[in-house]
Structures are given as structure tokens and as C-alpha cells.
């Protein structure tokens, strides 16, 4: 029987090409937009987590600080509660690191008469202290130490960035839900139009003894297929957009920031199941009242 239902579904799809195309295109857009929002959030969240994991404080010392002062500062900082490790970076080392990072713009540094960079410390904080308030308290303690010229840490910026991402997330969810509802509505209307065009046919089928499931099942298959096709096309499009985005952005920046990834296989399957569910729900809503009489 199931093969017969599939045969009916394929025949219906071929007979109602325009309606089915409209439904599929809607699902494609819905999947494309919601998936790209999800992909953006997955990657920004993973970048944020990566940055949050490795909270470090940079301490820049004044030029007047002697070797003795440096040793003393290192001792004081090591004694502060919450410090995991402290690494001294001399101004020469700092210049070398800068040269490595600048790569192509290396020649700009060639003409420097003297090293403009200060001596400094790179301080890592133990995980339980990695909150904005605790980092700030450690930073303010360090700032008070003599010969410390500047204390720099990314937490404040990260906190603001997380806030912005959360607002984006909320609007993303709202947009996703909106597109989901729009797709269900359009699929439901497509099915309704198909039902109206086939009203007589369905009546005849029922008069000759066809059960409701005989009438409904091919329509459900048709809608779930619409969902699957729309989902697959949407994801393929998203993959190509993602690829072209990655290839247009400087690879160096990407590897510096974090690994930007496309969806995993299980995430892809989940999106596909969701788009098939859109098809099913659209069909369910329009059939709910149609065969009651």
C-alpha cells in the first residue's frame, strides 16, 4: 500500500508543479535564513567560549622599571589570589612577536630606530576567577603596583560583545519562528489549494470506498517530500554561501579568531527533520477540517 501512496504522491507533485514549487521555494528560504542565523550563533558562541576560556591580563611596565623592579613586580603579582601563571615578556620578545604577526607588513618595523614596545607580563587567571568582576578586581590591584603603566584585559569588551550577541540571538529566534510560521502557513495553503482543485476527485474516491487515510497519506507524503527537498536545497545553498564567505575572508584572521565550522552531520539531519516537520504540520493543519464531513 505504501508504494501505492508514493505513486499517488509523485503523480500529484507532477500534476501540481507550480503549487509544489512555490511551497518548496518558501521552505528553501525558511531553512536558508534560519539555518544561517543558527550557524552564525553556533560559531560566535564557540568563538566567545574560546576567548572566555583563555582570559589573560597584559601588564605593561614603565621604561624606568629596572630589572630589580621587574622581579619585585612579578613577586607581588604572583601573590595575588586567582593568578594561574605569569610570564615575563621583554620588549625585544614583544617586538619579535609583533614582527611574526605582521608578516607582510614586516618592512614597516624595519626602519624603527629604537624598540617602542615596553616590557610586560602576560598573566593567566585560574578558571574559577574568570568572571568580569573578579578579573576587574585583579586588574585594579595590579594597576596600583609602582612602575605598572597600563593594564589591559579583554573581559570588558567580551562582556559587551556577549550582550550584543544575546540581543542578536533573541532577534534571530524571533526571525526563525516567524519564518517557521510563514512556511507552515504557505505549505498549509498549498495543500488547501490542491484539495480544492481535487475536491471532486476526493469525493469520488470516498464514494467508491476509499478510507480517509487512503486520501490523506499521499498528501502527507507529498508535503513531507516538499519539506525534505526544500530543506536539502536550502542547506546546499547555505553551504555554498558559507564556502564563498570563508574564501573571501582572510584565512589568517579566521585561524587567529577560532575555527569557523559548517554544521555537523547530526545538526544537518536535525535541520532536515525540522523542514520535513514544517511540511507535515502544513498538511496536518489544512487536512484537519477538510475531511470531517
Amino acid at each position, binding site marked *: 500500500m505504501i508504494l501505492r501512496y508514493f505513486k499517488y504522491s509523485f503523480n500529484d507533485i507532477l*500534476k501540481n508543479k507550480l503549487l509544489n514549487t512555490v511551497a518548496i521555494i518558501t521552505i528553501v528560504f525558511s531553512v536558508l535564513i534560519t539555518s544561517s542565523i543558527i550557524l552564525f550563533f553556533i560559531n560566535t558562541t564557540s568563538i566567545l567560549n574560546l576567548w572566555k576560556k583563555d582570559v589573560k591580563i597584559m601588564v605593561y611596565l614603565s621604561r624606568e622599571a629596572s630589572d630589580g623592579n621587574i622581579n619585585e613586580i612579578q613577586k607581588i603579582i604572583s601573590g595575588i589570589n586567582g593568578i594561574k601563571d605569569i610570564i615575563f615578556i621583554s620588549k625585544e620578545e614583544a617586538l619579535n612577536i609583533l614582527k611574526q604577526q605582521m608578516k607582510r607588513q614586516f618592512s614597516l618595523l624595519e626602519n624603527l630606530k629604537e624598540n617602542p614596545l615596553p616590557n610586560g607580563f602576560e598573566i593567566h587567571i585560574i578558571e574559577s576567577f574568570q568572571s568580569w568582576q573578579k578579573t576587574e578586581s585583579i586588574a585594579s590591584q595590579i594597576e596600583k603596583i609602582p612602575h605598572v603603566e597600563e593594564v589591559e584585559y579583554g573581559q570588558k569588551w567580551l562582556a559587551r560583545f556577549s550582550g550584543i550577541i544575546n540581543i542578536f540571538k533573541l532577534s534571530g529566534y524571533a526571525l526563525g519562528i516567524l519564518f517557521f510560521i510563514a512556511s507552515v502557513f504557505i505549505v498549509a495553503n498549498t495543500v488547501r489549494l490542491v484539495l480544492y482543485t481535487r475536491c*471532486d476527485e476526493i469525493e*469520488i*474516491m470516498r*464514494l*467508491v*470506498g*476509499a478510507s*480517509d487515510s487512503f486520501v490523506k497519506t499521499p498528501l502527507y507524503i507529498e508535503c513531507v517530500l516538499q519539506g525534505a527537498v526544500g530543506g536539502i536545497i536550502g542547506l546546499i545553498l547555505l553551504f555554498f554561501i558559507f564556502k564563498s564567505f570563508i574564501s573571501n575572508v582572510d584565512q589568517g584572521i579566521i585561524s587567529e579568531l577560532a575555527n569557523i565550522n559548517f554544521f555537523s552531520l547530526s545538526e544537518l539531519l536535525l535541520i532536515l527533520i525540522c523542514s520535513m516537520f514544517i511540511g507535515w504540520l502544513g498538511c496536518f493543519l489544512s487536512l484537519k477540517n477538510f475531511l470531517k464531513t
Partner: protein
Amino acid sequence: MSNGNNENYLIRMFHVYRRYGNNTALFDISLDVKKNEFVFITGPSGAGKTTLLKLLYLGEPISEGQIIVDGINLTRISKNNIPLLRRKFGIIFQEFKLIPTKTVFENVALVLEAADKPARFIQKKVASMLRSVGMEDRQNAFPLSLSGGEQQRVAIARAMAGDPKIILADEPTGSLDAESAEQVIELIRGFNARGSTIIITTHDKTLINKTGGRMIYLKQGRLWHPPNQN
């Protein structure tokens, strides 16, 4: 109401009414139809002939009274069992009611597909039904390319394909020329000879006189003569 063994009756109607709001289309109809009987329901237009047929296969709900078809009480039947009830009938409509987007073969096969018959059986059965109505050469044609007589022959093949116990024909010759009408009635008589019970609505007196069989007369929704002529 006829007396006799209940098993001889395929259809029994007890004080049946059909109302549409304040209008009553059928009043207090009680009648029996025996197995293998050939029955005409006749009367002027608007007398309730088609409504009476529709009540038998629950094309319309019964407002009051009881109808028993082949042992099934239609007032107590569950929604899920309505398709099973309808498979007991082969229904022939005046306007043929063939699906225009399906071929002749597919239209006849639909009844068997709905009853979940295997594909090979459907293939053989449909071919044999089309042969019996002389439409085997047109099995790939679409209904709209056929004449009225041909379409009605396909409709008869479809009605008979599921080997129904009862054939209901609503004005089956109403839109056909005399020659086609005669062919259609001959086909129906042939099925009656093979054991099917036939109920035909018509207001064609000549057809009734020529064919023979019991006549039930309806006028303004009431039985005009008691149905105990046989």
C-alpha cells in the same frame, strides 16, 4: 413492510426521515429490498429519489429512523467503517463522476486500490471489467475524450470492479441517447443475473416497463405505493 426471513433482505428501512433544516425531503420511509432484487425508484423530479439512494451509502446522514444494509445498522456505524459500507455498493451516477485526470484503467482500478487489492489482481480484474463493458481498447484514454455512453460504461465497470453486493444507479440513462441507454441497462441486467442486487432511480416509465422489476414510487418525499408488490 414485507414479512419474511430477515436473511432474505439486503436492505431494510424503518421510518426514515431526511430533513434539511425546516424542510423535510423524505417522510417516514419504510421498505425492504431482497437479495438479487431489481428495484426501480421512480417519481417526479424533487421527489427524493437521489436523497433516498444517498442515505443508503451514507452520502447524507439519516435524520430519523433506521436503515440496515447487509446486517449493518447505518445509524450506529462508526466513521471508520463507512468506507467498508461503501465497498458493499457499486454506485453509478447520472453525471458518471469519473476522475478526468485519470485514465479509464486508473478510474476503474481506483476502487480496488482503495480496497488494498494486490497490483496483479487489479491488473487482471480491471482488464476483465473493461472487456465486459466493451471498453478494453480505450483503457488508456482519458474520460473527457469518450462519448457519454462510453463514459457510463466505464462508470459501470468501476461500480462492478469491487464485486459489490448492491448496485445503486442514479438516473444512469438520463444523459444518454436511446441506443447507449439500452446498452447500459443490458449491462446492469447482466450483473443482476450474476447475483447483484440492483436499485435504479429513474423517471423513464418506458425503461421500467421494458426492463421489469419492482417499482417504488416516491412523491414529495413519501412512498406513494406500499413496496409490497412482489
